[in-house]
């Protein structure tokens, strides 16, 4: 890649980036406006006596930010760990076994993604309620059920590019299936693990409908708290925008860190 083409790519990237960021510009600028300021002119910068930072203060309090952040974190982190662990294992079993059965199982997982959530939610919560599982822990388990399919699907696709010779070599060195998987294969899956992690983190972090059905109010997450800003008629956009900004910061920070691992291809040198 030569300098000039790098430069033009940079320019292209910049332009696209601006287009992509425009809505965020609106979220950020409006989160610093008074309610009147927001509706006076959504597109302008905060100013004209309509600039304020109190939205953040109020939103922070109204969201009960510290405790709902704690719930969000706990639920997201634990669910994603469980998901990554079990779905990568399942994908490994399915990819390394080329039989009709595993093909069928994969299709089963995949087809689960096609079932609209709304059609299972009532029977689902009914069943879980009867098992006294309508709480955080039940929610984490539900995420495993709902999101494992996509994760398995993603894992299963990249697993093919890890030469089977890796498994064989470790197997001959005396490693059992679990050791082969955790010590050899799983580390080589880092880029896709990070991807699976990110996709699930955002899905779970932002999820509203399922937790609203499952969580008791003392375990509310940020999105659930946020919906107190949206009454039937009074939608408190100023607080919601500030709240949104507060709640996506942790995820953006995480994403920026996680990227390093996506970028670092780890499989070089594996294949001769």
């Amino acid at each position: 890649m030569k300098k000039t083409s790098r430069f033009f790519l940079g320019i292209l990237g910049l332009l696209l980036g601006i287009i992509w960021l425009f809505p965020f510009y609106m979220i950020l600028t409006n989160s610093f406006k008074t309610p009147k300021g927001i509706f006076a002119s959504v597109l302008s910068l905060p100013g004209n006596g309509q600039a304020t930072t109190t939205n953040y203060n109020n939103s922070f309090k109204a969201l009960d930010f510290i405790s709902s952040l704690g719930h969000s974190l706990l639920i997201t982190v634990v669910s994603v760990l469980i998901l990554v662990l079990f779905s990568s294992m399942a994908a490994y079993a399915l990819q390394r076994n080329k039989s009709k059965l595993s093909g069928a199982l994969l299709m089963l997982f995949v087809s689960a993604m096609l079932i609209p959530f709304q059609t299972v939610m009532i029977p689902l919560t009914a069943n879980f309620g009867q098992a006294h599982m309508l709480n955080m822990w039940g929610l984490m388990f539900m995420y495993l059920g709902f999101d494992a399919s996509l994760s398995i699907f993603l894992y299963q696709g990249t697993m093919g590019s890890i030469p089977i010779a890796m498994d064989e070599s470790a197997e001959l060195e005396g490693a059992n299936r679990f050791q082969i998987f955790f010590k050899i294969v799983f580390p080589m899956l880092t880029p896709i693990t990070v991807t699976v992690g990110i996709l699930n983190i955002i899905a779970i972090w932002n999820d509203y409908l399922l937790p609203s059905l499952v969580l008791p109010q003392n375990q509310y997450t940020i999105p659930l708290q946020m919906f107190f800003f949206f009454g039937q008629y009074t939608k408190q956009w100023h607080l919601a925008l500030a709240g949104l900004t507060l709640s996506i910061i942790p995820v953006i920070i995480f994403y920026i860190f996680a990227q390093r691992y996506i970028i670092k291809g780890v499989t070089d040198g594996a294949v001769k």
Partner: protein
Amino acid sequence: MAEIKLEHIYKRYPGNDADSVTDFNLDIKDNEFIVFVGPSGCGKSTTLRMIAGLEDITKGDLKMDGEVMNDVHPKDRNIAMVFQNYALYPQMTVFDNMAFGLKIRKMPKDEIKKRVDNAADILGLTDYLQRKPGALSGGQRQRVALGRAIVRDAKLFLLDEPLSNLDAKLRVQMRTQIAQLHQRLKTNMIYVTHDQVEAMTMADRIVIMNDGKVQQVGTPDDLYNKPANKFVAGFMGSPSMNFFDAKLENGRVSNGKGLDVAIPEGRLKVLRDKGYEGKKLTVGVRPEDIHTEQVALEAMSDALVDAKVEVSEFLGTDSMLYSRTGDTEFVAQVNARDYHKPGEEVKMAFEMSKAHFFDDDTQVTIE
């Protein structure tokens, strides 16, 4: 440490419509060093992988110390293997690559370190222990793969062309190391190579394969001097044996176009006893059994051939004369002193007492 028996082993890969290995039989004795040779694609790696348990055996039995092993899990066979394509763990350093098998077996840390350091030392990898495989040259990667096998106390070592990417010097060195290792560990080793010298110097016995079938099993000397058939004769030795289609008549073999040489008494008798008088057969003469020195021309005056040198190659001590008689091409390996320029017409003596004879149909050695 183990006796290994391969009994009528077959392998067919799903999707192929021919067997990649056919009726493979071999008895490996305790502490033997076996070398597999054969042309590319003849089934060497496949056989090795079946022994390791990495491929299912389509038919036949693999026995170790009398027990059928077909269904034993690879990790329970206690076998160390060097893969033809290395199969290094990309995310681990060189050290960890070598230490992995030991860690798995819960060996104490300091013992692991000792072994790995020792192996790294032997292999000249000490400076690279902290690198990952991605930042190594081809040969360095191959050495890591080798190191991974030798740190372990396996019952059986399988080495699939472990030196193919190393330079001559390192190769010789490694060859010696492996031989010593074999001495010290007293384990069985099966070694795949396409290098004649490696096969000849390292093997207790060589298994030579072609097209999935075993052609001959024997000591290097056997294979070189008593090849079972034309394939083996042609395969062993470099440059390979020259073959001439000829007819046996009046104690001479001739092809009517340049070749017409007498056969020594003893050999002639055998051929006649087997009924080849007046029949077609294939005559094989090794390049080094063709001479141009005056002494030889005189000594073997009844086996002279008029040849024309087409290319001559200088190789340190020897010269290769790529020559032609009639329309048959052949190679002579002569002393560098007996240099002949391309285009020169030269008389050459065929040392027929060392010649080989093969049946024209079955290609089997006549003896």
